[in-house]
């Protein structure tokens, strides 16, 4: 099998790069994205590394770009995303970029400052305009009233004599945020002891705040008071509430004159303001064209320096040393990239890539494409495969949609799902380009191939179940005859059966033509009263059969793992007893299921005496075989039905039971013996081994040497291993039983799905079909809408999701636990692609 069967071979390499060529080489490696660098200075702080200054400069550039981007977004200028991927610029180009950004930022800041000043000016003038307009109303309409009211209000408690002569009242006018008014009024009242009079009016149009650019609602107010001291106090309060005060002339003529002046100034300002905005717009449009490319460039530079920071400096300072994981198959491409990098930098000394030996576990790297990626994602979500262990993903490509389809078997629903998946696959490019933030959509889109496959398989299982929107198709002609006694001989058999309304299909009766329906289920079952009994029995047996097959396959895969890792002890201490246990009990069950199907056909045998599998199976474990001659006579279904059944079954059970202690004891005992032998060997020539080790790992980094010695001397704990084996054995033996039962979910969900869609048809759509005449013509489209909506929402989405989750569980738990340890870690290469795109959600349904 191809590369997907096991992860790629990955090796640890040491890379010697000339200082001047290092940047270009890393840049080329980033483009191909096949190398995972290891941090060689984990103890060094981020800010004490070699290229920290460059990283900082990149940060600064990014900040400027973010600033520009923010401004561009504020003006809603579309940013051009050409999708082209510029090469990482040379370090010397960084200065140019920095200069460009610096210039742009400064220009932008200047324009902003100007615009802000102008806007502030504009705001003030507009506020003044409103004040003049509103106060005009105050003064005009209530000339007498306001002033008189104010006087009255202010001097109500004073001597009426004083009130009779008009006092000179001062006033201030201003503008305040509308939401601050209540507190403002209260404060004024308290602080001035009620000796002021306030009128206010709302400004209907929201004004723009010059700093934030938000729209704010404001109100005009005018305060009357008496005396200089009160004036100071009022002003202070206004200041405290951030109200802006404006000079307001006292006479009407002056006010009008001022208003005219303000209007002309506003108009002048408008022209200037629009010019400033135009300028700003031009600058931003120019920047918007390049900003994505700039972002990419800066991110690339930053990523390269981050990587360079993980390198070690050679003693001579002439070259950088790095360690990295590389896939063995791609070493040539990596070499080529290094050569390209060296050439680009104009360095004469080539970069050197050395393979190293290490005891460390390499990362797991599976090369995937668009189709396999989704399935690999499902597997990795459970646990990343241990390095070079059998990867369940390639099998999941078929088994996953198939098990899903067994639970989702309906051709109609399958077609809808398939078409949805197909649409996403065909439109892949345009849909993928319009990067959506919708998480749900992204998950669906990530699993588009999965959805398409699941739809395709559902069509197939739907045909087997003969279910299309819960209805059956009569393609080949049913093999059942209606009761001969039924009067009238018209049309084909199914029509006659339908007319009979209800009936019970019995293969022993003469109604059956003795010819099986060629493909799938006979449509005649659709109307039979014993349909459920028949379908349940069929689906239940099918679930067990498929389940046992998949588990057997999983156990066999574990053989490949044992052979590959040279773990021959595991083969005869674990694999063989496991396969015997599973085969002798559960495979035997499958065999008798199939035998029963084939052997007991109604033509030749009396089906009443077909063996009851459940009871037979229980009896097999109890070693209990009813005697034919005993009284009372046992039912013939519980009797043995082939020669030597008793002997064979007894043998199977005994063998299977022997497997349990076999699994439990053999491995720990052998391991114990081995460790004793090793111990004596070590004590004899421990010195030699140490020497040998240090020779072997000359090139290896120093801390690994320590590691290797540690591993070698690791103590053998018999107790640990034994307990581990006990757990493992119990888990396997009980697991076989519970997992087989677990596969019954295939039947249960399939039943639920079929019943639900039938209920939906009968309760909703049939109402429309049941009405005759023109009313029926109207009713059909009317009831179609809810039926279609419910079909999509409940049957496709909800049921689909539930079937998906159950399939996922069957793969993760029932299948994977037979062979998959999943204790590896992912290969995360240094790649520019990952930096450029925010990874889209891949994997789930």
């Amino acid at each position, binding site marked *: 099998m191809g590369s997907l069967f096991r992860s790629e071979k990955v090796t640890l390499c040491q890379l010697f790069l000339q200082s001047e060529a290092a940047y270009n080489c890393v840049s080329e490696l980033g483009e191909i994205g096949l190398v995972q660098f290891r941090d060689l200075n984990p103890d060094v*702080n981020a800010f004490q590394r070699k290229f920290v200054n460059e990283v*900082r400069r990149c940060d600064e550039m990014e900040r400027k770009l*973010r600033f520009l981007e923010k401004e561009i977004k504020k003006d809603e200028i579309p940013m051009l995303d050409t999708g082209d991927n510029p090469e990482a610029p040379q370090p010397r180009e960084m200065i140019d970029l920095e200069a460009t950004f610096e210039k742009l930022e400064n220009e932008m800041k200047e324009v902003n400052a100007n615009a802000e000043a102008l806007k502030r000016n504009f705001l003030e003038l507009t506020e003044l305009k409103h004040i003049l307009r509103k106060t005009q109303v105050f003064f005009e309409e209530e000339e007498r009233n306001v002033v008189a009211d104010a006087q009255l209000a202010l001097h109500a408690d004073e001597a009426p004599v004083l009130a009779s002569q008009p006092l000179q009242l001062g006033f201030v006018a201003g503008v305040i945020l509308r939401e601050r008014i209540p*507190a403002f009024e209260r*404060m004024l009242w*308290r*602080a001035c002891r009620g000796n002021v009079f306030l009128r206010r009016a709302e400004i209907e149009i929201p004004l723009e705040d010059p700093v934030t650019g938000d729209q704010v609602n404001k109100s005009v107010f005018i305060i009357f008071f008496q005396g200089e001291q009160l004036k100071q*106090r009022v002003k202070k309060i206004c200041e*405290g509430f951030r109200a802006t005060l404006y000079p307001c002339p006292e006479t009407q003529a002056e006010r009008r004159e001022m208003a005219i002046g303000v209007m002309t100034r506003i108009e002048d300002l408008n022209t200037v303001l629009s010019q400033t905005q135009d300028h700003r717009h031009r600058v931003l449009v120019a920047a918007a064209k390049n900003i994505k490319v700039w972002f990419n460039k800066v991110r690339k530079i930053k990523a390269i320096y981050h990587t360079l920071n993980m390198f070690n400096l050679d003693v001579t300072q002439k070259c950088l040393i790095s360690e990295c994981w590389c896939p063995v198959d791609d070493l040539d491409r990596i070499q080529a990239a290094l050569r390209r990098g060296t050439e680009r930098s104009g360095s004469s000394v080539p970069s050197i890539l050395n393979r190293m030996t290490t005891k460390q576990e390499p990362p797991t790297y599976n090369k995937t494409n668009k189709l396999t990626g989704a399935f690999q994602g499902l597997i990795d979500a459970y646990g990343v495969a241990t390095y070079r262990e059998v990867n369940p993903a390639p099998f999941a490509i078929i088994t996953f949609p198939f098990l899903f389809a067994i639970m989702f078997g309906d051709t109609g629903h399958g077609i809808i799902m398939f078409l949805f998946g197909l649409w996403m696959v065909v439109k892949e490019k345009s849909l993928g380009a319009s990067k959506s933030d919708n998480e749900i959509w992204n998950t669906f889109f990530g699993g588009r191939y999965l959805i398409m496959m699941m739809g395709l398989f559902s069509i197939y299982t739907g045909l087997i179940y003969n279910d299309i929107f819960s209805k059956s198709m009569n393609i080949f002609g049913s093999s059942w005859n209606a009761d001969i006694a039924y009067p009238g001989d018209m049309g084909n058999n199914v029509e006659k059966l339908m007319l009979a309304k209800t009936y019970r299909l019995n293969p022993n009766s003469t109604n059956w033509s003795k010819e099986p329906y060629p493909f799938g289920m006979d449509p005649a079952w659709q109307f039979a009263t014993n349909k459920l009994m028949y379908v349940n029995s069929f689906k239940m047996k099918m679930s067990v059969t498929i389940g046992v097959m998949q588990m057997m396959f999983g156990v066999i895969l574990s053989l490949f793992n044992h052979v590959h890792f040279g773990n021959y002890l595991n083969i005869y201490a674990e694999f063989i007893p496991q396969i015997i246990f599973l085969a002798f009990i559960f495979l035997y069950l499958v065999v008798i299921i199939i035998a029963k199907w084939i052997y007991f056909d109604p033509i030749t045998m009396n089906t009443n005496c077909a063996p009851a599998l459940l009871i037979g199976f229980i009896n097999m474990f109890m070693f209990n075989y009813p005697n034919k001659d005993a009284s009372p006579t046992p039912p013939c279904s519980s009797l043995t039905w082939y020669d030597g059944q008793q002997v064979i079954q007894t043998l199977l059970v005994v063998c299977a039971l022997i497997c349990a202690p076999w699994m439990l004891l053999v491995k720990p005992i052998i391991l114990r013996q081995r460790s004793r032998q090793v111990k004596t060997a070590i004590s004899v020539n421990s010195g030699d081994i140490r020497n040998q080790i240090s020779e072997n790992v000359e090139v290896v980094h120093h801390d690994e040497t320590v590691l290797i010695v540690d591993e070698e001397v690791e103590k053998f704990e018999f107790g640990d291993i034994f307990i581990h084996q006990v757990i493992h054995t119990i888990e396997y033996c009980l697991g076989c039983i519970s997992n087989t039962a677990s596969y019954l979910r295939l039947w249960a969900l399939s039943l639920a799905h079929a019943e639900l869609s039938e209920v939906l048809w009968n309760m909703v759509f049939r109402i429309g079909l049941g009405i005759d005449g023109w009313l029926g013509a109207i009713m059909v489209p009317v009831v179609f809408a809810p039926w279609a909506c419910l079909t999509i929402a409940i049957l496709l989405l909800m049921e689909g999701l539930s079937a998906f989750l159950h399939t996922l569980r069957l793969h993760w738990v029932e299948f994977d636990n037979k062979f998959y340890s999943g204790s590896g870690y992912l290969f995360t290469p240094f790649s520019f692609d990952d930096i450029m795109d925010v990874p889209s959600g891949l994997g789930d349904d």
Partner: protein
Amino acid sequence: MNSVNFNINFGYLEGLCRGFKGGILKQTDYINLVQCEILEDLKLHLQSTDYGSFLANEPSPLSVSVIDDKLKEKLVIEFQHMRIHSVEPLSTFLDFITYGYMIDNIILLITGTLHQRDIRELIPKCHPLGSFEQMEAIHIANTPAELYNAVLVDTPLAPYFMDCISEQDLDEMNIEIIRNTLYKAYLEDFYKFCSTIGGSTTEVMCEALAFEADRRAFIITINSFGTELTKDDRAKLYPRCGKLHPDGLAKLAQADEYEQVKVVADYYGEYKPLFDGAGTGPGEKTLEDRFFEKEVKIMMSAFMQQFHFGVFYAYLKLKEQECRNIIWISECVAQKHKAKIDSYIPIF
């Protein structure tokens, strides 16, 4: 409030708060931070912690005040988030926490205006957690009575202000007395509120507030030496919800010098070690730092229990201490004065 129903209303926020607490800098972070040469290094390191890119949009060169603002901003955003999502009685509890900041802000503004500073210059210096609507108009008041009638009467601090309404002009001494009287009333009220909540909240919060009250009592006493404050007036400023109440406070009221305060502390197991070895000499930690250390310990222990509000208070206090630490370190870095850089107070 009991543990059974706690999670219905407050489980989310408690979880959130504990999550925030997980982001508090560890000892290893501090070890890295003190190695910084310039503030840019500090920024780079903080990027790898829970602070993330909180300084990413600040143009270099950085200044300590920018860092301070951003630290505060982050804390305030987190606190406000919790406040907005809270329901009674947690919302009242969280409001209570902010009252302390309001008192500080009022005092800051009054002192500022007393020294003829412009109010607009002072507003940015106020702690954003303690800002309230009428705050900026505070400079119209010349006497405590005016302050109460015009400004504070609408704020939640009004009841605490009852004891210091007078027609005297505001001066330095007066302001200090107002601050401490307000604080005393606030602490006692908060203490009472926490006692009514019951359960672990009472247990944890009362200990924290008792410590706060006692710390204030000690500090007031020590700071009052050599001022015009009379012993009677001083006694009125002691918050009466701490462990010192009543005997310790009575003795403190009689104290004339530092040694006598120390004698009082000797009677209390919690405070004795704080005074032992505290000093201003080289290698010694100041009494203030000792109290901070003790506070951090109390706050950490608040996280040992579940289903109570103390975690919110403790989180805020710990985070404040962390901000103080970062600011201290950045000041030391900025001024190239590394001799004392290690006198931050580690939290974990």
